[in-house]
């Protein structure tokens, strides 16, 4: 993927999570995503930013416009120096449920984007990369 331009947002307070959402919204608007796609991406960003804050003890989000041979997209990278995720599969395992229980996990966010990748090891922090293509 060829990247075109990028921006980094710190995530250390719950207000930062709001800022992160708004930035992603701005970028998605500029790239002229459809309303539903914008909403999905911004919501995913909110989930992942909050994760970085709550579980990861703070970190940052990087937004980058990307291109591959046929289309444009928006890439978000969430990084934190927290405890890491011991069982990635379990964290992702979250089928469509009708309950409103706690901890929807990362499975939900994964469904809101096109590409989803987690790099995490206990003690080494977490990096989650997501892409939404137009």
């Amino acid at each position, binding site marked *: 993927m060829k990247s075109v331009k990028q921006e980094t947002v710190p995530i250390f307070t719950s207000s930062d999570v709001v800022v992160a959402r708004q930035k992603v919204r701005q970028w998605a608007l500029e790239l002229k995503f459809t309303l539903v796609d*914008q*909403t*999905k991406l911004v919501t995913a960003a909110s*989930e992942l930013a909050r994760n970085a804050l709550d579980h990861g003890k703070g970190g940052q989000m990087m937004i980058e416009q990307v291109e591959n041979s046929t289309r444009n997209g928006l890439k978000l990278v969430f990084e934190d120096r927290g405890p890491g995720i011991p069982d990635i599969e379990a964290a992702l395992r979250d*089928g469509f449920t009708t309950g409103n229980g706690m901890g*929807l996990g990362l499975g939900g966010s994964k469904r809101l984007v096109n590409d989803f990748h987690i790099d995490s090891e206990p003690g080494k922090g977490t990096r989650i990369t997501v892409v939404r293509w137009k």
Partner: protein
Amino acid sequence: MERIPILRMGQFLLVTIQVDMHDRLAVQLQDDLTQKISEWSSRGVLIDISTLEIVDSFIGRMLANIAGMARVLDAETVVVGMQPAVAITLVELGMSLAGVRTALNVETGMELLYELRGDFHSEMGG
């Protein structure tokens, strides 16, 4: 600190969420609502989210919590005005808000509240 205003309309409470809420504001709203329902013996709560462009799992849980707590205090909750893009996203996220009643707008929401809990004799009481 800023708070989301809660309006009283007879036996019901009306809350309009218009800002992009950060987590503390959401928690504050839950606390304020539970307190007011109790204080005014309200029978219903109408939450208007028609200007909310994002509802993530935190806000979703907040709505479910409010409905749950209100029910324990014998009040019904109706959430109105969810935007189509938001509904589609919430469903994809895996939230169904099963315990929360919903309506299309404030008007139909109020109709529903009256259907469920309206007691016309003591409408303006409290």
